[in-house]
């Protein structure tokens, strides 16, 4: 199987073709170039013409370079020794640790049989009130963080990684700035979470093809841990870079683009990744949180738009905080009924009042006069934003609920909140 081919027929972008027989679709090959070895993957077969996408990119490849087919597909090593390690998109170590070749598992495997899934019903605590209290994250949920460039989405991810109640964390970085990579490494080791983390990192300066491998590798590892009864949290940043990498390859291969240059199967490709989120009956789980930057803050851009249809809600990161409007956890009602008795009612009331505050703010900006009620709302909005919405706030769900009550008590009378008197009698703080 390890026949060597010495003649590359064509090189277009990152895709090369060779004449070879007996090659399998999606098989890996190794190319020896003057800059070193690179992996390549078969992505089209036309009788004896084999197209390969070269992980390290087409730059500097010579028509005389050696191509050797490896006889297997892209795989990733799996075992406890992955924990604490960092890899690139080819599966090679990025840290100074040894190369892992034991117990290789194929990536991008088949989807889980729906009858083997169970209904998501466990809360995943993050100690971020805007998540825990208002849009609870649920084990096995898939949620994107919609954000524009410049927002502190990686900081948010790092915090969730350190604080979330997960057994294993898998971080997949795509097109990551090198500074951000260093930031993640530093934060996770400072927070002591590095020992339960596996990182697959593609930085912005790495070849595009490797970017496309990151989600599959991260999710394949996560799935394996989940089958060993672990609750795994997968953090992906940034899925827009991933989609752009797909676009780049598709255009190079002259595929008909569908929407703003993205390939027609963008939805299916994204869905195949997000659907790896699962709660296995009688085993572990995979939860996926993925940053999706919105080019031009446009939620109708194909990447966030397709993502929104796939995922179970979304967090909107805007102005340095998670917006209560637009953010949605579709699974929250599966869990927030059994946290604390006042959770749902308080959540609804606070959001309703905050929405009134926004209206009042608009009126104020247009120069309408402010009534006594309007003034109460303005005060409430400020307190809410400072004590609960700010990203720096770090507290348990119970503390957040108590804080919510004290904000209400500072601004309103009991019957102005629209909360059942049964609850206000019990939870209203004594002044």
């Amino acid at each position: 199987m390890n026949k060597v081919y010495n003649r590359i027929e064509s090189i277009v972008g990152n895709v090369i073709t060779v004449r070879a027989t007996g090659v399998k679709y999606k098989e890996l090959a190794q190319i020896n170039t003057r800059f070193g070895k690179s992996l390549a993957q078969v992505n089209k077969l036309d009788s004896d013409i084999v197209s390969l996408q070269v992980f390290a990119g087409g730059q500097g490849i010579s028509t005389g370079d050696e191509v050797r087919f490896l006889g297997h597909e892209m795989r990733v090593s799996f075992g406890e020794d992955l924990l604490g390690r960092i890899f690139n998109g080819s599966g090679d170590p990025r840290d100074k640790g040894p190369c892992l070749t034991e117990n290789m598992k194929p990536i991008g495997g088949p989807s889980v049989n729906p009858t083997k899934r169970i209904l998501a019903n466990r809360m995943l605590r993050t100690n971020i009130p805007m998540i825990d209290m208002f849009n609870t994250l649920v084990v096995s949920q898939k949620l994107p963080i919609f954000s524009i460039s410049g927002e502190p989405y990686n900081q948010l991810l790092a915090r969730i990684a350190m604080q979330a109640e997960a057994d294993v964390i898998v971080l997949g970085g795509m097109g990551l700035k090198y500074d951000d990579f260093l930031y993640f490494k530093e934060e996770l080791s400072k927070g002591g979470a590095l020992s339960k983390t596996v990182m697959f990192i593609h930085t912005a300066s790495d070849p595009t093809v490797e970017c496309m491998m990151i989600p599959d590798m991260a999710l394949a590892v996560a799935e394996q841990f989940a089958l060993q009864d672990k609750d795994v949290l997968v953090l992906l940043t940034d899925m827009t870079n991933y989609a752009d990498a797909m676009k780049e390859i598709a255009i190079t291969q002259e595929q008909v683009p569908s929407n703003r240059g993205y390939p027609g199967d963008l939805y299916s490709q994204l869905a195949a990744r997000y659907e790896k989120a699962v709660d296995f009956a009688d085993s572990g789980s995979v939860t996926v949180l993925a940053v999706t930057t919105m080019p031009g803050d446009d939620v109708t851009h194909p990447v966030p738009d397709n993502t929104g249809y796939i995922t179970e809600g979304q967090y909107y990161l805007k102005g340095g905080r998670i917006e209560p409007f637009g953010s949605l956890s579709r699974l929250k009602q599966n869990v927030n009924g059994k946290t604390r008795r006042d959770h749902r009612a308080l959540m609804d009331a606070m959001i309703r009042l905050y929405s009134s505050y926004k209206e009042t703010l608009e009126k104020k900006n247009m120069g309408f006069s402010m009534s006594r009620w309007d003034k109460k709302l303005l005060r409430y909005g400020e307190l809410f934003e400072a004590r609960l919405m700010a990203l720096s706030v770090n507290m348990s769900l119970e503390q957040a609920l108590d804080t919510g009550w004290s904000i209400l008590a500072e601004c309103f009378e009991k019957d102005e909140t629209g909360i059942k008197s049964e609850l206000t009698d019990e939870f209203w703080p004594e002044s």
Partner: protein
Amino acid sequence: MTQNKGKVVSINGNLLSVKFDGNVSMNEICFVRVDDTELKSEVIRIKGDIAQIQVYEMTDGIKCGDEVEFTGDMLSAELGPGLLGQVYDGLQNPLPELAQRAGWFLERGIYADGLDHGKKWEFTPTAKVGDVLRAGEYIGTVPEGPFTHKILVPFNLQGNYTLKSIAEKGEYTVKDTVAVITDERGRDIPLAMSFKWPVKRAVRCYSERLAPVETMETKVRLVDSFFPVAKGGTYCTPGPFGAGKTVLQHTTSKYADVDIVIIAACGERAGEVVETITEFPELTDPKTGRSLMERTIIICNTSSMPVASREASVYTSVTLAEYYRQMGLNVLLLADSTSRWAQALREMSGRLEEIPGEEAFPAYLESYIAAFYERAGYVRLPDGSTGSVTIGGTVSPAGGNFEEPVTQATLKVVGAFHGLSRERSDARKYPAIDPLISWSKYKTVIDPEKSDYCKDILHKGVEIGSMMKVIGEEGTTLEDYITYLKSEMLDSVYLQQNSFDLIDADCGSNRQKYVTDKLVKILGSDYEIKSKDDARGFFNRMRQRFIDWNYTAFESDAFVKAEAAIDTLYGEGNGRLSGSAESLLKDGN
């Protein structure tokens, strides 16, 4: 069964080119042999001695030169007793059985029979020896859950047949011969209780197709009263993500006044299917008093399952619907989402290098969508009874923009349009069907004039509301302000409905008629109101009492009491019925 073979010559995604000898037919099923497994595929284009086939599985590991075996059959569904309550993938493989055989994952190349071939059913013959039979007529029955399942003469038999022999009443499997019929040339054909039918062909074994006239109650007020759906009709529900398409379909699948519901989860989340599978067996069908799952079939091809079988899944679902219609039953097919199906067509079209149409969708998109919805219908069957297939499809337009090809192609062929809006769902107004853009060609369950009267108030209210945003409350006249409040009240007490509340969600047509009369009275009256504050207070109180009323069981004591509270408040406001409303209410009685 042909013995045709071929060899793979090229591979691009899930599209393979195969060199064959002999004859192959379009849409024929073939199997690609790779390692130890055989992957199911379908011929989608033939050119010379090259057939292009789409593989219903992942194509990793296939080599040029791998062998392909053609079957001679088109993609078919197995029809017979035992379909109800099943959870299938798009190719009619029962998922629980795949789980037993393959474990956690949907491993490729594993297929199972659509029906349980070992299970015995209690067969009662109804036809007599010597009877002349045609395709789609029945020879006997078996009980299946709450229904009498009719054993049909296979749809593919053309011409007249004479019944030569029929089995005694007793227990048989779906593969046992229960009857023998003789064709016009004297050849005998044995019949079992099950047969196969190619899913991409519409079943036309009815005597005539009738106009859909009877309204299908969904118990959703906004739908039944304003934008109704008829039995045998079609409707679509486009909406941006998060607007509640799936929740609305889920509610409909529970409460719709039909015999059988087929849920086609096409390219959507697996989690939603899990929800249905977990929830439905626990719920009771109010009509039969049995588990809701017994009237439901789920065809699920979720977003991460291969696209080619996603395309097949809508056809499989509609074939099962047509099969049960042939027994004189009313079947509702809910397809979520047809956009994912259209995208599957687009993916294949791209690989076939066809000239792309708008947004790269293939040029035949419209005719495919039309052909699918046309398989709905209200029909008279050979025995004189009637049956129907109603199709409701969600559409997921890119960016929530309805001006895109799939939405537009669908709007051309459906009888009702329920457009969901982001604005309404953001304001937590559920169901988020936008009354300003939606329409229906079917008959409402309430008096159509009252329906129009309410819609008119709604339109006026929205106009005033948008004006008020510019000139403020101060600049609006009291009369306009009251109209605005009336439309707001109509919206919150009648259009909005709590689908999670058992009583509110289940609002039958009698109740809708009764409640609209009350609404027309309240909305069509003038009140002694001096100021805007008074007006706001009055309508807030009225709204609260109306909502309380919605949560009481129809015609219960609490219902009467809550209604009395509304009447009292009406009296306190010195309501006087206006002329137009008065004549409207008189007409109704």
